C-alpha cells in the first residue's frame, strides 16, 4: 500500500529532513509515526501524497510510483488519500458544511448526493448540530473533527493524520484516536504522525520512530 525505499529529502542549504528511509505499510494497517518535533514526520507524510518530491529513493502508493507520477495523474492519486493537516487547513469564513462541500465540488459529486454524505460524516464525528457554524466558533477538538470528516469525504484508501491530537487534552485525544481506529476498522489504511509516546503506548499499534530524519526503531 505504502512503500518507501531508501528515501531521502534534503531541503536547500543542505537541511536534511529525511535520510535513507525504508519501510512498508500494508493495506488496512494502522501505523504510528513517532518522534520529536523536527524529526521529519510531516515531510514523510507530504512525500506520500506528493506535496513534496524526494531528493532520492522511490515511493510506491497504491501501486503507483509517486516519484515518477505525471502532473496530470496527481489529482487521481490525491483523491485516494485523505489528509488531516496539523493546522487543519479549514476555511474559517465558511460554514462546516461548506468546508466539506468544497471537497465534493472538487470531486465532482453533485450536491444532491454530497448533502447526504456530509450529513453522515458529520454525524459520525458528532458535529451534525454545528454544520451551519463557521470553524471560527468551534473549539480546537471540534475543528479537528471537521478536518477528519473532510479527509473522509473522498472515501480514501489511505488516511494520513499529522499530529491529530497536537493541541487537545488527553480525553479529547483519545476520542479522536478512537474515531481514527473506527475508520481503520472499516478498511482504510491509517498513518498517524505524533510526538506523544503516551498515546502510542495506549493504543498499541505498529510504530515507526524517526529521529533526525532517520528511521531508528520499529515497534511491532
Amino acid at each position: 500500500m505504502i512503500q518507501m525505499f531508501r528515501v531521502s529529502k534534503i531541503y536547500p542549504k543542505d537541511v536534511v529532513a529525511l535520510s535513507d528511509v525504508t519501510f512498508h505499510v500494508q493495506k488496512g494497517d494502522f501505523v504510528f509515526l513517532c518522534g520529536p518535533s523536527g524529526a521529519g514526520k510531516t515531510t514523510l507524510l507530504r512525500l506520500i501524497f506528493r506535496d513534496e518530491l524526494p531528493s532520492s529513493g522511490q515511493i510506491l502508493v497504491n501501486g503507483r510510483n509517486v516519484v515518477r507520477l505525471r502532473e496530470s495523474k496527481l489529482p487521481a492519486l490525491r483523491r485516494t488519500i485523505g489528509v488531516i493537516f496539523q493546522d487543519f487547513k479549514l476555511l474559517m469564513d465558511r460554514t462546516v458544511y461548506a468546508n466539506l462541500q468544497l471537497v465534493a465540488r472538487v470531486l465532482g459529486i453533485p450536491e444532491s448526493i454530497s448533502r447526504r454524505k456530509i450529513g453522515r460524516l458529520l454525524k459520525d464525528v458528532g458535529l451534525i448540530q454545528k454544520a451551519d457554524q463557521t470553524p471560527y466558533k468551534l473549539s480546537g477538538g471540534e475543528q479537528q473533527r471537521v478536518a477528519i470528516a473532510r479527509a473522509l469525504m473522498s472515501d480514501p484508501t489511505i488516511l494520513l493524520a499529522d499530529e491529530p491530537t497536537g493541541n487537545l487534552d488527553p480525553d479529547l485525544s483519545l476520542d479522536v484516536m478512537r474515531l481514527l481506529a473506527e475508520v481503520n476498522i472499516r478498511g482504510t489504511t491509517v498513518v498517524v504522525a505524533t510526538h506523544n509516546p503516551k498515546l502510542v503506548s495506549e493504543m498499541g499499534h505498529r510504530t515507526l520512530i524517526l529521529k533526525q530524519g532517520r528511521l531508528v526503531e520499529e515497534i511491532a
Partner: protein
Amino acid sequence: MFWERLRTLLSETFLNFRRGGWGILVSVGAITIAFLITGIFLLFTLNLSAVVDRWAEDFQVVVFLHDTITEEQQTLLRKRLDGEMAVREVTYVSKKDALAKFRRQAGGQENLLEGMNTNPLPASFELRIHDKYQTAAALKQLAASLKRVEGVEDVLYGQEWVERLTGVIEVMKILGIVVGGVLGLASLFIVANTVRMAVYARAQEIEIMRLVGATRTTIQIPLILEGTVQGGLGAALALGLLYFLFQATLWQLGTSASILFSGPELARFLTPEYRMAMIGVGVLVGGVGSLVAVRRFLKV
C-alpha cells in the same frame, strides 16, 4: 448531472463575486472607464466619417455653361465629359431645373428672385467624380482643362475642405486605435491584477482544493469565468453610459445637430455589431486577464 454542475459553477462564480467586494467593484469600474473612453472615440469617429461621407457623396464638380452655348457645343462637351476617366456620372441641369432647385433650397426666401423677368441661373453639368480621382491635384487639372472648352463659363469644385476633413478623420481613427489599444491593455492589466488579488485572497481555498485532488481545470474555470463576467459587465456598463452621454449630447446640441447631420436622426449610435463587439472584447479581456493571473499563481 451536467446542469447541476453548471448551476453549481455559476452560483459559485457569483458567490465569489460577492466575496470579492471592493476589489471587483474597482476592477469593473476601471474596465468601464477604459471602454467608455474608447467608445467615445469610436462613436465620434464613426459619426464624423459618416457626415463627411455624406458630404463627399454630394460633392461634385459643376461645369457652368454660357447662356450662349450652341447645341452642337453642348453635345460635344457632353461627349467629352462622358469620356472623361475621372467622371462617374454626368447630370444635366437646365436653367429651368436650376431655378426650381434654387427655389427648393432657398425655402421661404423665393422672393429673392421675384421681380426678375429673366432667369439669371446658368445651365450646368454636375459631375460625380470617381473616388480615386477625388484628389486636389486631379480635380484641379480636370477643372483647368474643362474651363478651356468653348461654351463653358466656369468650373467649380471644392475638394480641399473634404480632404482636410478626411485627414482629420484619419487622425481620429489612428488616435482611437492607439487610445483604445492602450486602454484595452490597461484594462487587461487591471483585470489580471484584480483576479490575482482574488486568487491570493483565496490562496488557502485553492491550496486545499489542490491537496484534495482538484484538477487544474476545476480550480481555473470559476476564476476565469469570474474574469469574463467582470469584463463583460464593465463593457456593458460602458455601453450604457455611452448611450446616455450620446443622447445627452444630442439634446444639448439641439438644432446645431440637425444642421451638422442634416437632421438629428442621422446621428447614429453604435450599430448592434459594434455593441456586440465591445461586450465581446470586454469578455475576452476579462477572460485573458484572469487566465494570465491564474496561470501565474498556479505555477508558483
